[in-house]
């Protein structure tokens, strides 16, 4: 199939590519650009591990065609630590032990970051709803929710 020229902006950097029209943003990020922090799993927009930000909005990169990203800004987990300093959400995930196997974490952190941009002081219930599209099979979610609460500057309740 013919390749179509695509100028793709990822984490502030422009990449001049030529891609087939059926290729997804996820596939192009990983296979063409080697930006592999964005993970691949269900490919049906159910699990959220491929979450990236498109113009600041969380989307599942497995169901976005690369050509739909023309003239838009893509942010992956690699783009979150500006100048080498971790984003507060990243730091909170480390500090509160919210990571186990790690596979869901890039998507989880980007979904949390996008949500906090729109609602900087969420309740615990709001955080759980905000992360409903991101599945984690290790942690049971509690420490992830705590990390997002902490990143938002809220007091994290003591758990048993």
């Amino acid at each position: 199939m013919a390749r179509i020229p695509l100028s793709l902006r990822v984490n502030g950097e422009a990449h001049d590519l030529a891609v087939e029209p059926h290729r997804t943003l996820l596939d192009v990020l990983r296979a063409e650009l080697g930006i592999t922090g964005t993970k691949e799993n269900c490919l049906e927009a159910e699990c959220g591990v491929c979450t990236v930000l498109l113009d600041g909005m969380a989307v599942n990169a497995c169901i976005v065609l690369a050509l739909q990203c023309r003239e838009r800004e893509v942010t992956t987990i690699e783009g979150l630590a500006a100048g080498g300093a971790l984003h507060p959400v990243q730091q909170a995930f480390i500090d509160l032990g919210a990571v186990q196997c790690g596979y869901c974490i890039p998507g989880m952190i980007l979904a949390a970051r996008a949500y906090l941009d729109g609602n900087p002081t969420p309740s615990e219930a709001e955080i759980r709803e905000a992360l409903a599209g991101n599945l984690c099979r290790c942690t049971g979610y509690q420490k992830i929710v705590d990390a997002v609460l902490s990143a938002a500057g809220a007091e994290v309740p003591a758990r048993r």
Partner: protein
Amino acid sequence: MREAVELGARFGADGRFLAGGTDLLIQMRRGQLRARHLVSLHRVPGLGAVDIDDAVTLGALVTHRRLEREPGFRGALRALIESAEVVGGHQIRNVATVGGNIVNASPAADVVPVLIALDAEVTCVGPGGERTFPLEAFASAPGVTARRPGELLTRARFARLPPNSATAFLKAGRRRAMEIALVCVAARVTLDAGRERCVDARIVLGAVAPTTLRARAAELSLRGQPLTERARREAGRAAAAECSPISDVRASARYRALLVATLVERALARCAERIGQTA
């Protein structure tokens, strides 16, 4: 827009319009749908607009996120927000569109019952010009609508509600988020000037028939009545008798019918509360 319509006409059944892609791209990856050409609508001007004057017009590319956040829907049109905010997770709602929800014609669609309860019309445009349909009559079977191959659904439109009106939407699933409806219910009620008796009602059911279903007997049972607890329960029973759910891995037909009765009753109670019924 003209270019999209021309491409739609040229490709016919070989082509598909791409809006949010949350159904289309997944169906294509599963091999359930083969399209030789996708026509992306993203840069077609005007399709993403919400216009509120005497009527409300939703462009086909209005996302669920946009519906959820529309301040103009926080009053009598609240069911639009309630139905949009329970679709998928944020990643889905950020891209999934009203137009996609309508043409996909899933009997379990969440926003469609609310639009039908608002007597919405939808407009399709093709090489021969525009065609407008009542949304209620648009879908004829799961995935099948009156839209011709290559025709583009551009908007849904409905009149603003009269005074003393309210809407409510309720959905039952096995969990609270990221779930297809076992049953969903949209209700719209208009009371008389004294807010005592019901002058008009719509009760619309999702996931309990091959297409989104208007429960007409239930609606009729309310006409001219005060929305008492008894009238609300009767309407719930009538709606349960009108629907034809199936049993599947998610729920039995019997359970779905019970859910219809309960959710209709509750949605009507919510409408009465929102209008501030005096009876």
